[in-house]
């Protein structure tokens, strides 16, 4: 009843019953799914922005937005109204084509990744047999947008910022890939559905606690470095490069970067949830059937978003506690700490799988 599959099936059946041409049904469903994803994308970004602003305020002994609507929940909507209607400045001496395509590439990258996620039992856009590989591939598209934005702006701050972003992503992609690969060994599949099904009895983190925990930590660090969020926000580096790669963007163009940043935050948390924490699978203890039944009663989408938001909270906690790394420290962390640990963990996982499975 609380599951979303019921609604989806109902829509599908009503359409099938009323429209004779099956291609038309498929077309309508594609449009509906697209619209649904877009809506979810925007709503998630808004929720996350509000979430971050309140939580950041709480970490800093402040109250945060609380005057627009009850508890300030309409704050972000006001922001959206404003940013939509803000003037878009046409900057002189820019590479026009690249400048105006950069934010679309950023949004596209995050949206493509969004399409590959699994939100609840039976709720997902596309289910590839190489799902993990797909996520890794498309999630790094947005960095191309960042690089282009920095280059096309004809601004020295933006250029430095985007070059930093390039160096950062090339390095951290490696660790993120390695830690996901570790999990692929455990799951024996790259298909996200299979990975989630594998975790029905126990999440991966309980199946092989030591290597999975190491992989999770590495993935979270690398993931946040990829999304350019503090303490890895070097491409933006507010106190150094004013606004980094999006210095020259105004109005909704900047709004796209802003949205993408928050959705990327969610995407990292979502992938971590799916691969390490069982995705939408409820918390089960083998043998305790009564307990499992209670857990099953909670809808799967609640499980998924609950876990994802817990990870997001962790990320915010880290972000608002630590200072920013310097570029050489950033590379040091990747090449001298995360990568050796990741490689070691890969071997450890292989051994673990051989011994325990």
């Amino acid at each position, binding site marked *: 009843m609380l599951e979303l599959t019921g609604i989806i099936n109902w829509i599908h059946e009503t359409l099938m019953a009323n429209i004779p041409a099956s291609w038309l049904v498929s077309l309508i469903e594609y449009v509906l799914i697209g619209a649904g994803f877009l809506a979810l994308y925007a709503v998630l970004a808004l929720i996350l922005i509000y979430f971050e*602003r309140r939580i950041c*305020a709480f970490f*800093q*002994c*402040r*109250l*945060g*937005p*609380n*005057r*627009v609507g009850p508890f*300030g929940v*309409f*704050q972000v*909507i*006001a*922001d*959206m*109204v*404003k*940013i939509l*209607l*803000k*003037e*878009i*400045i046409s900057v002189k001496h820019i590479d026009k084509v690249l400048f105006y395509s950069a934010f679309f590439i950023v949004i596209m990258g995050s949206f493509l990744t969004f399409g590959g996620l699994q939100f609840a039992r039976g709720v997902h856009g596309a289910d590839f047999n190489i799902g993990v590989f797909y996520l890794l591939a498309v999630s790094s598209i947005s960095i191309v947008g960042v690089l282009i934005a920095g280059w096309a702006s004809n601004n020295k701050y933006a250029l430095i910022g985007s070059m930093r972003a390039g160096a950062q992503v090339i390095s951290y992609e490696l660790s993120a890939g390695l830690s996901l690969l570790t999990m692929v060994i455990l799951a024996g599949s790259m298909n996200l559905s299979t990975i989630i099904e594998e975790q029905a009895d126990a999440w991966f983190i309980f199946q092989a606690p030591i290597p999975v925990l190491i992989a999770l930590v590495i993935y979270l660090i690398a993931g946040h470095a990829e999304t350019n969020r503090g303490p890895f926000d070097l491409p933006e580096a*507010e106190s150094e490069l*004013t*606004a980094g790669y*999006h*210095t*020259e*963007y*105004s*109005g909704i163009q*900047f709004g796209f970067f802003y949205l993408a940043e928050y959705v990327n935050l969610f995407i990292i948390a979502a992938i971590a949830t799916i691969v390490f924490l069982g995705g939408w699978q409820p918390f089960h203890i083998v043998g305790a059937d009564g307990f499992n039944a209670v857990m099953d009663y909670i809808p799967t989408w609640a499980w998924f978003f609950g876990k994802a938001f817990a990870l997001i909270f962790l990320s915010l906690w880290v972000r608002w506690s630590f200072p920013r790394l310097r570029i050489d420290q950033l590379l040091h962390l990747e090449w001298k700490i995360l990568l050796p640990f990741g490689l070691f963990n890969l071997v450890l996982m292989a051994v673990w799988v051989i011994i325990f499975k």
Partner: protein
Amino acid sequence: MEVKNLRVKSMKNEDFNNNDYLEKYVEELHKGGVNVAIGVLDDVINWGRSHSVWPLTFATSCCGIEFMCVGAARADFARFGWEVTRNSPRQADVIFVAGTIVYKMAPVLKRLYDQMAEPKYVIAIGGCAISGGPFKDSYNVVQGVDKIIPVDVYVPGCPSRPNAMLYGMMQMERKIKLESFFKLPKKPIITKEEEIRAQIDEESKDVKTSK
């Protein structure tokens, strides 16, 4: 929107200074009559704008420290949704001129203002920004930023208390709520670059001849 319909959470209209200015302002805006549909749309837009004003991180002197205090835990302008300070003028909505503007800084301030995207607002904080304040007699201080850029709200004080700035922000909020998206208000015209250059040349000529 009428001045009497303006609502600011936990404040009454009578609590605000200078309401007669707003009444005149609205009168001028409504001169051609108001379309009802556009009026409602305006209200929605202005609601969004007035509650999401992102300041530019700009401060020149003492008032800047009090401006930091507004951002810090005690006063916390995040409650109003103003805390997203942008370092790039392209993304900012309001510039708090917190501090003295001297002759060397004046062109920079003008440039910052020009770099901001419309709609943009200016709040002059403290005596220096309003009138030159303590440095009225100085040879190098601009006697009020309204000589360079149009100012929306003046917040007196030297430096003004954080709460006084919050009050100024609420005044700004009220002014934005009266605006019309489809009929932008006239901003006081600040003389253009060439004219000022010509003026400077002429003045220096005058001085020379008088000597």
